[in-house]
């Protein structure tokens, strides 16, 4: 029960006068009435050579320092070379060198640490609070990359903590993140199925299930497109979700199509919001040609290669 947002710039020629981070934050602010518990962004930054971006949750209290040490030790123990670290809000960002299998690394550490995201481009920043309060803490406005997705959350059946904020990283899969509006009503059946396949959950949030589900599909070498399609059958309830990869944003919408999602596209960019008001905020005074996806559909928009 939330608001979702997404922006994808098709190419580098940009006339749009806001940064990607500013724009995503404006969409969130315009739709903040849909969920005031927490918010978050999945930002796709430029890759740095031989570097993987990692982010971990750390406690807000005085135990943070020791937790940071523990993160560093655990990573080193798994042959991750830490290049630099930076504390941001309730998270620790790590730039690291790692040439091994990210999935194996994730499986090895996810029961000990609380990874937020990993990838060559992906950085997920999320916290409890409203977008205009949280964005400055995480320096969202400075981000001006090719694409990102974002989210306002109104908690339904799981608690309000930074961990249960969206976006969720598809654990173990570089650069894949999801945001979701709606409710998966066969959550426990699907969760137990995925757990029996060795997948790990950190929360009881159903969006994490979408992320883990997609991760599992990809572990089985199923394409993102086919995974989106399969999710329409496998997940029950009502949902509109977005999934972002290093070079695209995909969506899926259930058969009831009860959760809103509108899209606006021009030569330069694609903008997605739960409501027109979010998109209009980026183009004040303009009449926009918006569309909404039909029920039981999915799709992927990619960066121009």
């Amino acid at each position, binding site marked *: *029960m*939330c608001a979702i947002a997404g922006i994808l710039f098709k190419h580098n020629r940009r006339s749009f006068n806001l940064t990607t981070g500013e724009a995503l934050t404006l969409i969130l602010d315009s739709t903040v*009435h*849909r*969920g*005031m*518990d927490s918010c978050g962004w999945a930002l796709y930054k430029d890759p740095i050579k031989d570097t993987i971006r990692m982010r971990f949750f750390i406690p807000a209290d005085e135990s943070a320092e020791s937790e940071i040490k523990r993160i560093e030790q655990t990573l080193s123990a798994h042959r991750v070379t830490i290049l630099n670290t930076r504390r941001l809000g309730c998270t620790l960002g790590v730039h690291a060198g790692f040439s091994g299998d990210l999935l194996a690394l994730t499986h090895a550490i996810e029961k000990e640490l609380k990874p937020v995201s990993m990838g060559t481009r992906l950085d997920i920043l999320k916290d409890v609070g409203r977008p205009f309060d949280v964005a400055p803490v995480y320096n969202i406005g400075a981000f001006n990359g090719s694409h990102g997705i974002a989210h306002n959350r*109104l*908690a*339904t*059946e*799981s*608690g309000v903590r930074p961990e249960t904020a969206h976006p969720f990283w598809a654990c173990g899969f570089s650069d894949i993140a999801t945001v979701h*509006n*709606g*409710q998966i*009503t*066969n*959550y*426990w*059946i*699907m969760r*137990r*199925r*995925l757990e*029996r*396949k060795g997948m790990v959950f950190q929360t009881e949030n159903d969006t994490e299930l979408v992320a883990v*589900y997609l991760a*599992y*599909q990809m572990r089985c070498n*199923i394409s993102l497109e086919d995974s989106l399609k*399969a999710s329409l059958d*496998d997940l*029950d*309830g*009502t949902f509109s979700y977005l999934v972002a990869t290093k070079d695209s944003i995909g969506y899926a919408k259930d*058969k*009831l*199509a*009860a*959760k*809103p999602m*509108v899209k606006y596209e021009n030569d330069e960019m694609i903008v997605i919001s*739960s*409501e*027109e*008001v979010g*998109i*209009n*905020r980026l183009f*004040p*005074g*303009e*009449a*926009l*040609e*918006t569309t*909404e996806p*039909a*029920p039981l559909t999915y799709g992927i928009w990619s960066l121009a290669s």
Partner: protein
Amino acid sequence: MATIDLSHAPMRTANEVIRGYGAIHQSIEIINPDAKHYIAVGLTNPIDVHIKGSAGYFCGGLSDGPAIRVDKNVSWGVGDNMLGGSIVVGGNAGAIAGVALRGGDIVIKGNMGSRSGQVMKQGTLFCGGSSSFMAGYMMYGGRIIILGDSGEKVGENMAGGEIFVGGQIQSLGSDAQLTIPTEEDLSGIAEFLKKYGFSFSGVFKKVVCAGKDLTYGTPEPKTKPIAYPEFSGRQSTYWNKKVCEDIRIKGSIGRYRVRGFGAARHIPHFNDIAFKTRVNPEKMDRSGFEKVRLRTFIGDRHGGRALDLSMPVMIAPMSFGALSPEVKQALGIASSMSGISENTGEGGMSSVERAETRQLIAQCLSGRLGWNIHDMKRSDGIELYISQGAKPGLGGQLMAAKLTPEIAAMRGIPAGMDLRSPSRHPDVLGGDDLIMKIREFREAVGWRLPVSIKLGGGRTRDDVKIAYKDNLDFVELDGLQGGTGAASSEVLEYVGIPTISAIMEAMDGLSEINARGQLPIVLMGGIQNGIDAAKAIALGATAVGLGTPMLIAAGCIGCMQCSSGNCPLGLTTQTPELTKRFDVQRSALKMHHYLESIRWQLAAVTHCLGHDHVQELNRNDLVALTPEAAALTRLPYEPEYRTGYREQYDAANDMPGVSSAKKETGTANYTKQSFELIRMMSESNHEDNDVQQNLLTQALVPRENPFPEDRPGHLDDIVFLSAALTRLVIDPYREDCSTQTCITRSIGIGPKKEDQPAIDLDKPFFVTGFDDAPVPVQSALAKVLSQSRCGYIGRAPLKTTAKETPDYPWLQLLKPGEDPDAGADGLVYVINGSFEPISVKRMHPGQLIGLSVSATSACDALPFALKNKLDLLVLDQTTGIENPWVELDSPIDLTVLRNAVRGLQTMGKEEEIALVNFGGLRSGTDVAKALAYNCLGSVFSLVMGIAMGGSIQDKQLVFADDLEESAMVEAGLNWIKGTAQETAIIARCTGKTNVHNLEPEDMRAITLSAAKALDIPLASGPEKRESF
């Protein structure tokens, strides 16, 4: 022309200003709208409003009269519930344009989003471009004109009205059909186009309601209520009269049953709780408790004008339609006399009711029947109905017999239909939309009135948090015992949590977000007197609601025929010969007396417990008298507080008691004692201390524990949690829920594995036990199973009298060592006693192999079954599936389910083998419980025999010789159809579009024995969830 700049003015101020200009008939322009929501909501003056840009949600919603122009686009719900006037949109419209339109014109020059015109009733919705999916969804009347193409399912489930499409129709919705427009239609459209400056040269197609779904086919036969001790409590038997009646009636009508009232079996309740201080009515000092303050204000959490209740009591929402106009009038009079509030319920506000009622809450339901801005404005509070305790997940039902032309006109719908209101609001599809709907209401009435929601108990802990965050002023919370005029009998009994659990969950939910005490809860559902009310308030409620007892006070005798329209007292009927039996003045006075007696009791108890104000009542004033009540409320279990009250009553009682010869009522939650007490309260003089003391003495008598400790865990003690705010309910009347079933092992994620044996069924049902039945019975069953695509488990295939071979999956039931049949689709080896490894052999690669196991053999059989890749386990809850009609005298042991499921979980092998349960299954709800518990299907036996006409005689099921095979086939098919509906309804109530997505987490136990037998949590859980 005045100008309002929305880049400066907040919407609340802007709407005040717009209404101000409206009042002086001054036209206005609005600049910098930038898709802001709620522009010109609640405007009721015929002024021009020019919006220079795009508008957001609910532009011009809840209006009557204005001419609104929007230069560019609008978002969701433009012209929501407009009564008259016009809205012209220069660009596109988002979803649900013209939702619940009741008059006037909405003109969209561009394209129109999904579900436009949903539940509209009058007026014209025009789209110059194309419309997205489901235009005219559930429309009741009016006209939609689409010049371009229409998306999928146009006219889905429409009940009236007309849709004209100039372009392509992608697909028609269910119960919609194409016809040719008449000359009159076309000239009307031409006139409309001319008026708004459009031209069109193509050919219109016309979509109308086909009328197949408007009414139920066969009416449900009239029945008299069966006395509740027959089917609930110590004396009841498993295959009791009620169970048999349900089976037979489903066999004749082919659908789920509908009735009035609430849950009829025993539910843990306030009369299982006592006060910690002994209340002695004889020692009441009237002068003392007359000083007790009862006055309660509720609803000003956000600046609205609070309801001012002379005591913490409200009258529960009951509709004009379900009740006769005269009863609504009497309720209004009684509420005014007693200084409390009344509630319109669904279907609109009657002017007589309004005039008689000092404080009237207007209730808004999903179908927006009779809902309009004028009634909102003349109300004293606004309530959005989300769900109710009697039938969470279902919309209101009003059978054709009660839908008179007058009521249909007020609601704006065609008369003569069996009205089944939508299960959810067109524009509230979650907590996020709810906040916007609430805001629209507030804007419409200038933030003057309290806004509340009505919520049925279920996922209450999470739902109240959303209610709190969505800025509601209070919540009317309704437990499982809440009543209704009409609902599916299975939902009445098994969806929702007991009232005492609902209040616990609400308090715990608010505590979890540190908001306890900040959102008033009005508790209802089986609250019958001042004692119940005091206990509810002590548990945390701010006030209580009274529905059914008000009707009992007015004379209701509990025949439970509310839905039929044949109420002999003239209460729940619209038939003039019956309604004239109801005397408004006399009944109003009786209801008033009843309310005053409640006041007396509330004051007396509050005083006796040492408080000055009723809101000082608290948990420390209470103890639990039964282990169930203690577990559900976390009150101390102190059964010794039971003693004394009955003796006190017997000693003091010189009033005529309830004759023991009088038949018990049809519901354990309103026994003949309850009826008698309420009746006496309604006839009592509240000034007469002696009478009131005596009534209090009677009200204080606790009931016997209906759940004795030796009672085995029973399926009846499991309930489902419905969807409400946290998740979306799937509309049982019109949205699909699959019952397709595949019996196979190793269910994983992704497509079905083709290389392992599987049986596909249309419904998750098997039948067994007919091997020795007469041949015509077997033959009839074979036809039933073939046509309904269900399976048979038996020693041999069913014998048949037909020439053509029946086609149904047959699983051979055999003992270890017996010869398997190559013709069987599966083999089920019966394991008696403890498990010993057996030799099994597939006769062909597609043949399923399974074991039938009991609670003792289940755990030992599991490793063997998994190791040998067996496909199926039949979990036998009886003393032996192989014995004919074993369910007649076998105890039903649910622990086999628990043992098998927990065993598989421990091994991490859940879903590696198909589970199917047998024993004591009587209904679709029972199957839903098995499915939720991880079974893939259930096996019926006795129930099928009864459905087909068998009768129970001396531990045997006997089929009379004169039973026609065709009649048995019809009854069998009907029963299966109705039963599958029941399973699917339960699944939909919990938010699933597939019955196999039911989960153990959707269930709660209401007794300790059931919680233990199935290892399912109780309806109200631990105080605080640590991690979730």
